[in-house]
């Protein structure tokens, strides 16, 4: 059939959709769920601006059919902020001036969330390899590396408050 029924969870909230089979996951998030914090900056899966958390791992949501979201749990940038303020990763990006135009920032943040979950104390080289698939044109990346290192330190100091 050319359309699919989807029951999914985004940022902890349940959603139900009936969408064309060809719909991309990034368009489900942006157009159907109205969460426009996730962005699209290329059409070949290279830029990483659409990175989100999908069943616990980071994926490029433009490289996944929305149909696959049925029964999945999804995390987007809008889910990072909790009742008691920003996630340490968001604070670290702000302190280290790791965002300028902001278009790649949501992808960078979600990559950092997934990466720090598995690497609480990463080296600089490990950070650089983790962000190989996330392009930025404004910052020149060095502040993003510092932000991830700072976020790792903040989370090690108070692991309880990590988001997503």
């Amino acid at each position, binding site marked *: 059939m050319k359309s699919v029924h989807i029951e999914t969870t985004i940022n902890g909230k349940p959603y139900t959709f009936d969408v*064309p089979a*060809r*719909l991309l996951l990034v368009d489900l998030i*942006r157009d159907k769920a*109205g*969460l*426009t*914090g*996730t*962005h*699209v*900056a*290329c*059409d*070949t*899966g*290279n*830029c990483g*601006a659409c990175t989100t958390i999908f069943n616990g791992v980071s994926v490029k949501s433009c490289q996944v059919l929305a149909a696959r979201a049925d029964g999945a749990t999804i995390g*987007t*940038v*809008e889910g*990072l*902020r909790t009742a008691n303020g*920003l996630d340490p990763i*968001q604070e670290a*990006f*702000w*302190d280290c*001036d790791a*965002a*300028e*135009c*902001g*278009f*790649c*920032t*949501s992808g960078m*943040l979600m990559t950092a969330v997934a990466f720090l979950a598995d690497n609480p104390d990463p080296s600089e080289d490990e*950070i*650089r*390899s983790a*962000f*190989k*698939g*996330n*392009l*930025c*044109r*404004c*910052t*020149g*990346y*060095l*502040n*993003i*590396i510092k932000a991830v290192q700072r976020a790792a330190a903040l989370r090690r100091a108070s692991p309880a408050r990590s988001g997503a």
Partner: protein
Amino acid sequence: MSSRESNRRKYVGQEVRRKESADALVGGAEYLSDIRLPRMAYAGLVRSPYAHARIKNVDLSGARNSPGVIAVYSGDDLKRATKPLAPFPFTAQQPYSSKYPKLRFADHYCLATDKVRHVGEAVAVVVAEDRYRCADAVQEVRADYEPLPVMVDAEKAMTHPQKIYEDWDNNIQYEYRFSEGPVAELLRKSHAVVKETFNLHRYTGTPMEGRGVIADFNRPKNLLTVWDSTQIPHALPNLILESLGREDVKIRVVCPRIGGGFGIKWGFHSEEVLIPWLSLTLERPIAWWETRSEHMVASHHSREQKITVEAGFSASGEITAIKGRVIVDLGVAYPCGGTSLAFVTANFIPGPYRVSNYEAEAYGVVTNKSASGVLRANGKVESNYVMERIMDLAARRLNLDRAEIRRRNFVPPDAFPYTCVTGSIYDSGRYGECLTKAVELAGVSSLREDIAKAAREGRYRGIGIGFMLEPLSSLRPNAYNSGYETAQIRVDQVGKAWIVSGDVNMGQAHQTTLSQIVADELGIDINDIEVFEGDTALLSSNSGSYACRFSTVTTSAAIMAARTIREKMLKIAGHLLQVDADRLDIMGGIISAPDGKTSITVKEVANIAYYSVNRLPKGMEPGLFGHRFFFNPNTSFTADEKGRSANFSTYPYAAHVAYVEVDPGTGQIKILKYVTVDDCGNQVNPMVVRTQLTGGIACGIGGAIYEELVYDEDGQLANSNFSSYLIPSMLEMPNLELHHMITPMPFTPGGFKGAGEIGAIGPSLTLASAVEDALTPLGIKVIDLPLKPEKVWRLIHEATKGGKAGAT
């Protein structure tokens, strides 16, 4: 500054966190493609697969009955309904009264009418209910073409009989000449002459957010609102109306949050007429934003120039004379500002050096490629590159140290303001000190031992030295970029300040830095300030954001506007406190007398200024409002009798030193150390300055090694998406050591010069110098760009046909 003045300085100079990041970090910033309007329809463009072909016919029937389609139009429809695109950046077809520059424009409608001139030129547009079905319908349009010979070499196109524009006598769109002094004679008599021809490759800025336009025509109000991810909001109302051939419609242009520009959104593009026309015609909101593949062919490119430089030197290394010839590949003659590339390059080949005898001819030539336009430090990357290469080659020829030959030619510190040979007035600088500091901080002498050790192990390490001077904050006669900027500040009834500037924020922290400046001028808290840019309903100005003019004219207009409000607040407070106004000071929102006891808050003064106006001094108008213009200092609109013109207002500069290893087996370059010393005048926010410089250097490294737009002889672009157009990732970006000098801009209240572009100039010239130094044993000259591994490998391979160094 007096002591009272100094404690007033609270924010400028501090590393304040960026206000703009508050919403971006939570996914709350609204970019163009995030905007949703009721009944919004989507436009999709049908683009030519041919680089040069006559359009035989465009069959729209297939698309017309495709599901969800609202309307379909071709070039002929648009030719009947609109005018050719207005000649941005000029308000008139013949802007210059002087003999040179000579410039002409072509009649382009917003869809191709008679023929297509580059791959990706739009021939038809489809409007549909949603983006998905729009993409299906675009595929159903059948266009028949009759291929024509394709021209992809600018130099050949200059004399080729095949015309890209039938009504032109040749393919030259722009011509510029300059001559000062007996150059030919001096070159003949020079001790040494270095002559090279540099082929600089085409690349582009690819902001993460591509271009996009949404237009919504409200017939009852006769109001057309245009959302546009653009750097020239204030030029667009006139450009759109002129190109639509209409006078009656009110236009409001709104820049939503912009995801990067870098000059690629400084230009007038066909979609900025087509989408508004569709909304006027269909009376529905219409949205279009480009895919990345579309961006690579439909947004402009830059940098592609062939430059020949012939420079004479005395025995002690002083420059005697320079002759330059510049050919810029302009691609198709769209009105996106590419004509200035030849002018800027030709005007600044002499760069930071004392040159009094200079001759230049420069051409902008059309070819069957996407249009060329401005891109971060356009004209300056190219002119600095060729001159720094010439200085290195002269140093080698004259057996001089590379830093020493530069010091011997620099404009000395006491010569400022210095009128250079082509007429520009360099504002202030300490060039020699800057270069010396960079060489010391990089530890060049200790690196020499490292290099010797590596050489013994058959490894190629080298040091690159580069100096760059960057002309900024420019203007042109009879043009949208007329060089002034406007700032309007209003302190409201409760003492909050609302700033509106004619500039455009696309990631350069305008909101943060303007808040810092105005908070200090008004003595209020930075969080009591809101900044608006890019909305023509709030303010009218000239063009928008380019060439770091924010640092020179926008900050100055804001400072002047703030000071008029400060003066009025002090007058009101003085009247109320019965204290002489000029003995009062404002700090943290409190206006107080020197005794520290008598004071009144800004909020109370504001309340009185708007409500209890009876308590105002006699005859004083209500309200706290300042609106000032600030013109580019030390510039002139017209060239003098010798053709010398001063189009740029301020001149930051920098020295870069790179320590690299070249892998002879693959040609790859590994950057081991990269040190910079920048002088961008006073700094509003040192953290933002460092980030802007780092981003600039990343753009420079991309252009130097990884990014390349390759056209084959059929005019097909070989890399039209992000899997083949290679932007540096985090792994390609070396750590940097950034150092600074502060030589204020003497002609503006703030003294800022700007740091947004200069980073992009350094890497190509510095890495070329480093690779050349590393391969000294092979006697290689690095001339052309990019420094991609294959090119470096070929330099080594040809120099070592005997296979000595071709070791793996």
